[in-house]
């Protein structure tokens, strides 16, 4: 206290207070503001599941336990959760695979998170949805021919508890582990080939760019960094999104996003668009630690100019400040 009392009439005291107040607001806001979770959902790049792979009864259990609280047992919605009967399986796949559903807080916009369910649970859930909840063929189907996320090693890893105790069990486990690793590597390579083929299959990136810039960039930003909407909502950044998630978002229109069905932007055009987005994201970010989410050159220039000029002015004030005779 004494220390402050002695210095509060110092000529720089005013500046210090202002800077401290600004820093407090900035840090406080950053602490309170919702942050998008950057974790990538590890969904398997699966082909359309065949009937013998799915367990509809298991899907019903998943639905009743995780979804029915808000969306109702028959999926017709409630005060806190919307009607699911017309949204289509693409919407279910998008919301669950990006970790947005199940939601912990129905009043808040959900950020991207790691997926809560396993891939098999999601497949079962979608099968149950198609059989018992979906009205007719309303809504869009899951685009299984578009590559999803890279396979995760955890889906292949054997559990130690599945093997016998003791040395013999350990050896078996080691063998299974090696096999799993090989399987995982094969699956990863397959996925990579599928992904590369899909991205390379687009041959008119100019069209993809024009479609992205005229229909998506307003909200998601020209570099895909996202942006603000009204009433505190925001358009999420799309850097982490897999091609399938982008496709599903377009056909299902999650949240406030309008829909872009295959009629409006046909599948080939969507492939061009997605290829453009993924190509854009492969560009290295040259912004270093001050990348500003790549908001764009004009805004970056303005910020650089204002901040730089402020620092230079502060230096000039310091250099030329008149020194008082007695202090």
């Amino acid at each position, binding site marked *: 206290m004494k220390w402050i009392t002695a210095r509060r009439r110092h000529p720089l005291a005013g500046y210090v207070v202002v800077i401290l107040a600004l820093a407090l607001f900035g840090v406080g806001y950053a602490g309170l503001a919702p942050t998008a979770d950057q974790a990538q959902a590890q969904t398997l790049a699966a082909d359309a599941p065949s009937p013998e792979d799915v367990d509809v009864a298991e899907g019903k259990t998943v639905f009743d336990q995780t979804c029915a609280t808000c969306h109702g047992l028959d999926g017709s919605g409630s005060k806190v959760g919307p009607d699911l009967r017309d949204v289509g399986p693409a919407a279910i796949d998008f919301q669950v695979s990006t970790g947005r559903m199940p939601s912990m807080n129905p009043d808040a916009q959900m950020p991207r998170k790691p997926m809560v369910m396993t891939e098999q649970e999601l497949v079962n859930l979608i099968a149950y949805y198609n059989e018992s909840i979906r009205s007719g063929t309303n809504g869009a189907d899951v685009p299984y021919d578009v590559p999803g996320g890279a396979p995760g090693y955890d889906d292949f890893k054997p559990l130690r508890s599945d093997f016998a105790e003791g040395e013999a069990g350990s050896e078996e486990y080691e063998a299974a582990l090696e096999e799993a690793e090989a399987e995982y590597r094969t699956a990863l390579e397959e996925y990579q080939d599928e992904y590369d083929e899909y991205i390379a299959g687009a041959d008119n990136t100019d069209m993809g760019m024009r479609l992205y810039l005229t229909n998506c960039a307003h909200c998601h930003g020209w570099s895909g960094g996202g942006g603000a909407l009204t009433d505190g909502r925001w358009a999420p950044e799309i850097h982490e999104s897999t091609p399938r998630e982008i496709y599903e978002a377009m056909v299902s229109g999650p949240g406030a996003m309008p829909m872009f*069905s295959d*009629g409006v932007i046909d599948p080939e055009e969507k492939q061009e668009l997605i290829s453009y987005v993924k190509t854009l994201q492969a560009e*290295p970010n040259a912004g270093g630690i001050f990348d500003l989410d790549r908001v764009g050159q004009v805004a970056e220039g303005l910020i650089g100019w204002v901040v730089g000029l402020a620092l230079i002015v502060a230096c000039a004030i310091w250099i030329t400040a008149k020194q008082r005779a007695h202090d």
Partner: protein
Amino acid sequence: MTENNIDNTGDDTPKRVVGTPAAEEPVVSVEAEQARDDHNGPYPASETHFNSEEVQRRGEKVASAWFIIAFLGGIGFLVSYFLFTPGQIADPQYGQYSNMLLGGTLTLAMFGIGAGMTVWARKVMPHYEVSSPYDELPSNDEEKGSFSAFFMQGADESGFTKRPLMRRTLILAMVPLGLAPIVLLRDTGPLPGDKLKNTPWEDGRRMYVEGTHRYVRAEDLENDPYGMISALPAVDDDHYPHGISLNDAAKSVILLIKMPEEDWQPSMNDEIEVDGETGTRLNWTHNGIIAYSKICTHVGCPAALYERTTHRILCPCHQSTFDASDAAKVVFGPAHRPLPQLPIGVDDEGYLIAKGDFTEPPGPTFWDYAKD
């Protein structure tokens, strides 16, 4: 070193410290000590200001710390220059690190020197006012007179006053040049006429999904109860890479929005009169599809942040917000008129067509339009 620098009287043979004056040269601070009592600045002698030895010593330490930081920054600059091979810098990721390091260390070096010198000036150097008065500025009459006599003599000798023909033709030659800038103003014209009010949209004109050359059909939006798409008039002018000039595209781009019937606001059924015909806003939609100009009526940014849940169209530049379910009326922001609506319908083959031009001029409000 600090002790040596300040007080080296204890030693019989004082060592010369690097960067300080030789012993026989007068030391500035001693001179200044004497100046304290008899200097003639605007402030009284008592206002001149010497820092105490303690402050000076602290200032010296701070300044030296800055100079050491600057030295390390300079060394860091050299290190960061040689840290990356030219081959590595070609990779943007490494080039970025290289740039950050080079710029950061150079900043540190230069800022450190500047900061150290500022501390030096403020804490170590004595402060007093010095003034050196100027002489009277105006020339005296004698000088002025001799200059004008010299000038007139030169004018006479050059023949400028004695040769009227030459003088007048020279002035004549300059007249057109004086007028030239006024003539060039013509290039700001011609007046736009009604070009600002018309666009390539006309009755029966089909539309392309912007970015493609595919006509939009009404049934393309069948599966989007809450769809949206950006569209352009289907013009195929070979002069332009995309079939339409950028000027025309900028004026005529539209947002096709589809929404369920029950979401329309009651005002959509109000009778309005355009070009002598009466109709309602809903008459100009087709099957739940409505077309608005995408150009914000404020300063002309593309306003296309469309929220399907609230039917708001938001302009990213100044947050003007329009309600798509209520004739694009302004609900927030600096825009002061709704987005113009394009009347649409379908032709025999099911393609969406315009049923005329916009009901109002699209784009930002201009001088002889909507003066209110």
